[in-house]
């Protein structure tokens, strides 16, 4: 077993080189590099945690924003509904007013027109009377050879018109 057979010859060398190379490993790798690696891991973990926290915060603020937008939107909608209702009422009232005004105008026109029609009819009737009286007097003078007085002819025509 060389481990024991060569112990006397080589133990100092083994111990010396072991200490040297383990010291190099410890100071270069353990002290030099491992803290950097651990630091990288720690900073990554921290960044992930921070990113998650930020995302959570942003989500919350977005939720709040949406909630505020919703209430604002609801208020706006209600306001718009009010506006529409009042506008509708106002428009209805205005329409009714204009309608009634127009109705009055139409009634007046109608009345005036009826009056004019009556007058025209009366005038036409008078015209017919005088024409008929003239015609009657002419007929009488031609047929009977007598000259009729105008008022008599008119009275006769009136009478005949009244009896149909």
């Amino acid at each position: 077993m060389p481990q024991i057979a060569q112990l006397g010859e080589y133990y100092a060398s083994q111990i010396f080189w072991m200490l040297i190379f383990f010291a190099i490993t410890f100071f270069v790798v353990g002290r030099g590099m491992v803290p950097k690696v651990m630091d990288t891991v720690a900073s990554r973990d921290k960044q992930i945690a921070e990113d998650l926290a930020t995302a959570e915060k942003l989500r919350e603020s977005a939720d709040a924003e949406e909630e505020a937008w919703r209430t604002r939107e609801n208020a706006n909608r209600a306001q718009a509904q009010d506006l529409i209702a009042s506008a509708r009422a106002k428009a209805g009232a205005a329409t009714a007013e204009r309608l009634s005004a127009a109705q009055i105008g139409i009634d007046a026109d109608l009345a005036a027109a009826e009056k004019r029609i009556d007058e025209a009819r009366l005038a036409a009737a008078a015209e017919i009377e005088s024409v008929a009286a003239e015609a009657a007097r002419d007929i009488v003078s031609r047929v009977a050879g007598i000259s009729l007085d105008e008022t008599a002819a008119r009275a006769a025509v009136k009478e005949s018109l009244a009896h149909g």
Partner: protein
Amino acid sequence: MHQFQLETLAGAHWNIAGYNIAFTNSALWMAIATVALIVFVAGGTKRQLVPGRWQMAVETFTGFIDGMLAANVGKNGKKYVPYIFSLFMFILFANFLGLLPLGVLGLHPFTFTSHFSATGVLAVLSFAIVIIVGFAKHKLHFFSLFVPHGTPVVMIPLIFVVELISFLVRPFSLGLRLFVAMMAGHVLLEVLSSFVISSGNAGLGLFAIAGLPSFILMVGICALELLVAGIQAYVFALLTCVYLNDAENLH
């Protein structure tokens, strides 16, 4: 047994205070393990936010050691991460490098963790750290480690002696466990491979009976040895953590 033979490669006459510190094949493989470990970890210090595969591998190892210390020592254990990481990775690389099939290239990989003169250094180092931390943190209170809670007063002297012995045995068990596991594995592989070769030389019939099953068994044991290489490094680091916990938190 040739694979465990130490050979002087350079500096046969290097001496420090009368002790010869020749550069051996063992020292060479310590150097190779150190360089390989530096290269491996250096590849993981790119500090990318989104790690590549290499960085991920290194971060997995540091996270593993960090988790082991957190589980065994608590948050006081954070400061031992560099030491435990170096210990674990150094042993792991040594074990794996010793298992590399470099023999096919004509090279002789040397597993320096199969020498108790090497593992003993690491064991004594861990033990020394435990003692220094223990006495620095708890002063003479550290001796209460040897008297578990609820020990009857009459039993205290006896228990103290038993606990003290079990405490003092720790560096030996720590160093010997690694050395024995590594050596046993390599010896087993060597014995089986010698079966394969000598039965193959003896004749086809004997090769079919003894050589082939041995070869198949070797394939399985090689896989097992890879597992043992990892487990022994883990056990060494884990036990150091457990001992550090004693020193940090007493009972």
